[in-house]
């Protein structure tokens, strides 16, 4: 028996280190921009300096004279070979948009909209030439105020739609008016969340290589979703799927940025098709801010009715979601609004709920999914109201939550907004958080500081996250986005294992998770498993990574595949030795006899027979040592996860500076395959939420100019301002899969903004000041204090 600590059967749940990390740490990673090809040329884009303008004329005779220039193309050149796209999800009733082309056609619709593509031998030459492209614009009135987007005075961006409203949903359930009438306490507030963006350190990047000789399109793209892009490029450029290959090499962060279709990337593919040679496009940081998708730009008005005993009676909520000029393709771009209206009050099962959400078109950058879509907003709305209600009633904020959560025995629980929750562990989360943070002591400490005049605050935020989305998320609405994932696993002649799957790696550790599950089932050492992901020529078809599904859906597909291969191995060995397969098992790379604890045959000897020595195999039996299985979560729209976060801050009223002292997270993601990877991924998520709470915002002028499109002006969290983050777990496995894992990729983000928001407002209490707008910058704090004075 193998008693080493790395015994394979113990691998699921172990903090296994990522073997593939070494290559990245040592600078040997291979990201798209690191790839060089013969005859590779480079593209730079001329982007609109206006938020909204008619394009009257484009001249590039001077630009064509620049050394190294190969080709310059306009919107119509790409439109001639690329079908337009429209990001409508048909199951979202009333959703509207218009066809969208890779490059602007007759109108520029946002500051940064790509208008002309300039191709040259080097990027520097392409940029030189781009400066000489002359475009005559007639500026038009931009639509840049979300709250006024639906006013009759505001111009309509797409006259054929007759409105700037992309999508609206209302809910009116239960006795809302009565609840407010009977409430002991009504908390009402207006909240504003800041438009921000993903800021992956590796910008968007693509190389397209169309080989005209055999009409093959080969693409290297920094993407989360190779198979989605496979369908997209095939469909829109009219190239058979069999002639398209998407490879995603190392991906330098994604967070939902790299699941969308971008005009500049589509134009890069188009240019390669027109030229018949490889073309590279890597967004620089300045154009990333202008052209990456934005997110979380909401205006909210919310009210909560609470009884004197501290029971939440009803919630009313009105939300406006800003967008870009088009619905985003192919995921719609209104998922934030969908999630906000679904999830306000959801953790507490609030049944008297009146809500409206409206997503409106704007002359701003394209808009869509960013990690933890909509959940941080729903959490902020609910948790800020709760914290104030508890304070007003003089109740302990944790007990208040516990007394209002969906009862532990009520699962599965159907929300009035539609989705059903399979199972949560909210009550345990609160109990464990109280211990983890030593709340009673911390409260005393906070109050001691307060007595000394130091403004310290503690804030909580209970959060729900969705994971493992079913096809009701996208496919039901007509989008060609797979909700299933597939794995293929083979036993190789030397006894090692080859595993490939449709999930993708962008740093979260998918490769290690795949290897852990495979090695556990097949009882081989981790080093004996080779995992290949992110190549549509190598990997089976599937969804890739979005919505926290890599481990929960991809992992289950891998588990089922490995189990099927195990069964085939046992049956093959049983056949060779005339034994019953049920008497056999696997251990340390051998088939063993369970009754005698004896090794029967090694994987290598078995595989050699299957591949090299058919003469020894009984006639009529074919060993199948390559197996594929698929999995899709079909029981719920999504599998909910839950948790609670706490933030402890100190605030300087003179400077408005907020010091984050510590942060705690309790999260339940069901079965944890690798805590080492999960916990730091949660911390990274927490920090993204802190960025939204304190620093990050894309600021637009009244004319729709993006005013802070650089890392100098747009602040992101850096190490020195960030606190240590304590992570703990509660546990409720999902029954939607045998693995029992729920998605863990996003929960950190879901609750951290609200926890920090509540902590800051707690710190401000002695001054009787309340801030209600994210990001909470020092200037806003000082302003709020001064207004009070």
């Amino acid at each position, binding site marked *: 028996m193998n008693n080493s600590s790395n015994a394979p059967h113990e691998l699921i749940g172990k903090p296994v*280190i*990522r073997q593939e*990390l*070494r*290559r*990245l*740490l*040592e*600078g*040997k*990673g*291979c*990201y798209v*921009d*690191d790839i060089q090809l013969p005859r590779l040329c480079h593209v730079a884009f001329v982007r609109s300096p206006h938020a909204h303008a008619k394009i009257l004329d484009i001249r590039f005779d001077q630009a064509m004279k620049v*050394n190294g220039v190969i080709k310059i193309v306009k919107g119509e050149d790409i439109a001639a070979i690329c079908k337009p796209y429209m990001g409508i999800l048909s199951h979202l009733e009333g959703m509207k948009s218009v066809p969208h082309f890779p490059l602007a056609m007759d109108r520029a619709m946002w500051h940064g909209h790509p208008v002309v593509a300039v191709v040259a031998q080097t990027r*520097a030459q392409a940029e*030189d030439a781009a*400066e*000489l492209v002359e475009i005559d614009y007639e500026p038009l009135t931009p639509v840049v105020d979300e709250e006024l987007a639906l006013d009759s005075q505001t111009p309509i961006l797409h006259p054929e739609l007759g409105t700037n409203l992309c999508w609206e949903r209302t809910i009116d359930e239960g006795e809302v008016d009565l609840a407010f009438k009977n409430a002991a306490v009504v908390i009402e507030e207006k909240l504003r969340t800041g438009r921000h963006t*993903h*800021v*992956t*350190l*590796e*910008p968007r990047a693509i190389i397209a290589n169309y080989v005209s000789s055999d009409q093959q399109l080969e693409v290297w793209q920094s993407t989360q979703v190779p198979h989605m892009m496979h369908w997209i490029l095939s469909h829109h450029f009219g190239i058979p799927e069999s002639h398209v290959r998407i490879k995603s090499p*190392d*991906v*330098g*962060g*994604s*967070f939902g940025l790299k699941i969308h279709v971008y005009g500049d990337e589509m134009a890069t593919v188009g240019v390669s098709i027109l030229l018949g040679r490889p073309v590279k496009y890597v967004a*620089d*940081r*300045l154009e990333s801010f202008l052209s990456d998708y934005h997110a979380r730009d909401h205006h909210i008005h919310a009210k909560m009715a609470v009884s004197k005993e501290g029971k939440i009676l009803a919630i009313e909520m009105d939300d406006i979601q800003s967008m870009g000029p088009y619905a985003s393709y192919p995921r719609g771009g209104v998922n934030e609004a969908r999630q906000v209206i679904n999830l306000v009050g959801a953790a507490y099962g609030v049944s008297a709920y009146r809500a409206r959400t409206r997503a409106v078109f704007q002359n701003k950058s394209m808009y869509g999914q960013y990690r933890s879509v909509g959940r941080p907003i729903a959490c902020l709305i609910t948790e800020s109201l709760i914290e104030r209600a508890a304070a007003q009633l003089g109740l302990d904020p944790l007990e208040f939550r516990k007394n209002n959560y969906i009862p532990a025995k009520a699962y599965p629980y159907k929300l009035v907004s539609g989705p059903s929750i399979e199972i949560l562990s909210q009550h345990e989360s609160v109990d464990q958080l109280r211990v983890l943070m030593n709340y009673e002591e911390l409260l005393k400490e906070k109050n001691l500081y307060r007595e000394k005049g130091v403004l310290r605050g503690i804030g909580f935020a209970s959060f729900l996250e969705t994971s493992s989305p079913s096809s009701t998320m996208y496919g039901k609405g007509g989008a060609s986005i797979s909700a299933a994932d597939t794995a293929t696993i083979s036993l190789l002649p030397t006894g090692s294992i080859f595993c490939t799957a449709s999930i993708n790696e*962008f*740093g*979260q*550790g998918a490769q290690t998770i795949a290897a852990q599950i495979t090695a556990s089932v097949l009882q081989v050492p981790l080093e004996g498993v080779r995992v290949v992901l992110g190549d549509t020529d190598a990997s089976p078809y599937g969804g890739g990574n979005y919505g926290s599904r890599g481990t929960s859906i991809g992992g289950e597909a891998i588990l089922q595949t490995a189990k099927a291969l195990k069964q085939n191995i046992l049956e093959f060995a049983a056949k060779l030795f005339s034994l019953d397969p049920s008497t056999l098992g696997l251990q340390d790379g051998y088939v063993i006899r369970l009754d005698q604890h004896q090794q029967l045959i090694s994987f290598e000897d078995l595989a050699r027979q299957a591949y090299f020595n058919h003469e020894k195999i009984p006639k009529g039996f074919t060993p199948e040592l390559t197996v594929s299985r698929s999995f899709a979560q079909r029981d719920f729209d999504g599998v909910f996860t839950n948790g609670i976060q706490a933030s402890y801050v100190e605030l300087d009223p003179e400077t408005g500076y907020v010091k984050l002292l510590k942060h705690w997270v309790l999260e339940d993601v069901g079965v944890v395959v690798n805590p*080492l*990877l999960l916990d*730091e*991924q949660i*911390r*990274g998520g*927490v*920090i*993204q939420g802190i960025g939204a709470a304190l620093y990050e915002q894309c600021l637009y002028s009244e004319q729709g100019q993006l005013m802070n499109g*650089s*890392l*100098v002006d747009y602040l*992101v969290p*850096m*190490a*020195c*301002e*960030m606190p*240590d*983050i304590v992570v703990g777990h509660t546990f409720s496995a999902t029954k939607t899969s045998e693995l029992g894992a729920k998605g863990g990729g996003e929960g*950190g983000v879901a609750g951290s903004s609200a926890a920090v928001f509540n902590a800051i407002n707690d710190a401000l209490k002695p001054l009787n000041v309340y801030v209600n707008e994210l990001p909470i910058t020092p200037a806003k704090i000082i302003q709020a204090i001064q207004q009070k004075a």
Partner: protein
Amino acid sequence: MAQFENQIEVETLINGEVVHRQVSSRMHLGDFLRIEMGLSGLHLGCEHGVCGACTVLVDGLLVRSCLMLAAQIHGCKVQTIEGVVESGAAKQMVDAFQKKNAAQCGFCSPAMILTTLEIAKKSIRPTREQIREAISGNYCRCTGYQAIVDAVEDVFDQKENKQ
């Protein structure tokens, strides 16, 4: 338009190898090392000196290669992650990063390794706050930075255990 096609002669030592080149006067060091020298371990995250992903060592000092012109390295010694790894000097830190899972996508990591190696040269163990301060010129969007601080502390733990 001004023409910047001037070529400038540069003689330098990159990762211990003599390099004698004509470089474009406007090319920044990061582009030169990546495009001309194939040293793709340094990454360009912002090209305006904020993110730190393009960090290299010039005459032993950490610099942002996007804020230096290639022409400025004439007569200097340049070390990139490739050279530092090959010299063996990064092994302990790389081990610690791997052990603590102090990276996810890896795009910031080579620069983070070079930066933390400078911290590790200190004779007195820095506090967690001091480690955070020292890496605060390197942007990481994936981790919570905590694992990176843990990795640096791990290197000091090992140093102290040896003594």
